[in-house]
């Protein structure tokens, strides 16, 4: 409606208000649902985009699990507005939503996001505390029950990659896990991070290829090509393990091991010049190019329902 500046970074409150506004502007298409509360009792909101009833085949879009990666939350909220404005005007999104639901969580770690805006811009983890342990927070992308506490995660609570005391110990992770398992019909799980311009798929905890390697690799290459077509942004594609490093307990490994075949994770702009401090003027181009890749993946999922 012209009031929200998508080309700027925003506080959590502003992002939540905009999610509410999207739901109010498109009551027949979008709704804001609370799926739980964070460690510090902030609501965990998801936007559901649906044109039907019941538990239809669905796509999960997850952003902002690492709080300092502000371009991921900004891209998430832009995508929300893009979905509602494209429905009925753009054929592929219209046909996807005529048959499937999309769930979008733009801020998967709200406590960390607020902390990164008020105390430490480089905060990555949750803000959970365990009695007797001095350091705060768990890496929410090492906390999923997929080879939990294996290679590429730390058992040191002070580490940036601390896996936490047990799988799904983080309420932010558990809320998503419970929601997805209760739903039972998710076909795709896409996580959005920054930075380093990568599009990856399972596995992270092992360098063994997933059984759907060929298909996931082919889809990811097509998505990266579509992304590059807008501004020439170059992405590398591959499994997490060989593309960056071994990382156990990650969201997409959990999704894939729980039967969600189309599991991907993005690392958005840039390749290190600004890192987590990507200037606001790059939000719109980043979101626009990411959307092209997402559409390739979502269309593929839609055409290959299983």
């Amino acid at each position: 409606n012209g009031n929200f500046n998508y080309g700027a970074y925003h506080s959590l409150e502003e992002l939540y208000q905009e999610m509410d506004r999207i739901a109010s502007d498109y009551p027949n298409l979008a709704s804001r649902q609370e799926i739980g509360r964070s460690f510090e009792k902030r609501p965990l909101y998801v936007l559901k985009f649906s044109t039907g009833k019941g538990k239809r085949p669905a796509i999960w879009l997850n952003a902002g699990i690492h709080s300092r990666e502000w371009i991921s939350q900004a891209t998430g909220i832009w995508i929300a507005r893009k979905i509602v404005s494209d429905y009925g005007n753009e054929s592929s999104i219209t046909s996807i939503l005529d048959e499937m639901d999309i769930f979008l969580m733009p801020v998967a770690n709200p406590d960390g996001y607020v902390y990164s805006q008020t105390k430490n811009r480089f905060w990555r983890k949750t803000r959970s505390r365990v009695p007797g342990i001095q350091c705060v927070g768990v890496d929410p992308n090492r906390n999923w029950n997929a080879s939990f506490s294996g290679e590429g995660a730390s058992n040191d609570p002070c580490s940036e990659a601390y896996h936490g005391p047990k799988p799904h110990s983080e309420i932010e992770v558990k809320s998503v896990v419970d929601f997805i398992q209760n739903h039972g019909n998710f076909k795709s799980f896409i996580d959005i991070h920054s930075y380093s311009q990568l599009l990856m798929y399972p596995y992270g905890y092992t360098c063994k290829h997933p059984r759907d390697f060929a298909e996931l690799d082919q889809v990811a290459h097509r998505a990266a090509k579509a992304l590059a077509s807008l501004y020439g942004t170059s992405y590398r594609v591959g499994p997490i393990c060989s593309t960056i490093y071994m990382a156990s307990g990650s969201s997409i490994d959990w999704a894939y091991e729980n039967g969600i075949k189309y599991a991907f994770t993005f690392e958005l702009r840039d390749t290190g010049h600004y890192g987590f401090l990507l200037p606001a003027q790059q939000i719109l181009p980043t979101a626009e190019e990411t959307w092209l890749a997402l559409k390739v993946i979502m269309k593929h999922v839609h055409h290959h329902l299983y």
Partner: protein
Amino acid sequence: KEKFNGHQVFQIKVRDGEQMNKLNELVNMENFKLNFWKLPTTPKRSVDVVVPSSSLKLVKSFLESHGLEYSISIEDLQALLDEEIKEMKHNRGKERN
């Protein structure tokens, strides 16, 4: 609010496994108080690290003595953060108007 006055961001390039080992030594030097945005993984990928003002000389000397190529990608971290906060406040004002 934590301040990052005088902190700089270094981008470090690694040629081979030996240099990777040296870089990992740097990662483990807790007294330097470095914040690695991305940890060293393979020689092909550069590494970005926030270096506090108190460690600038020591880190530069470590990198140079081991032949590790680096460049300064952010000269003044706090200036960039101040700019970001200013812009967010400005945008909030615009929205209210």
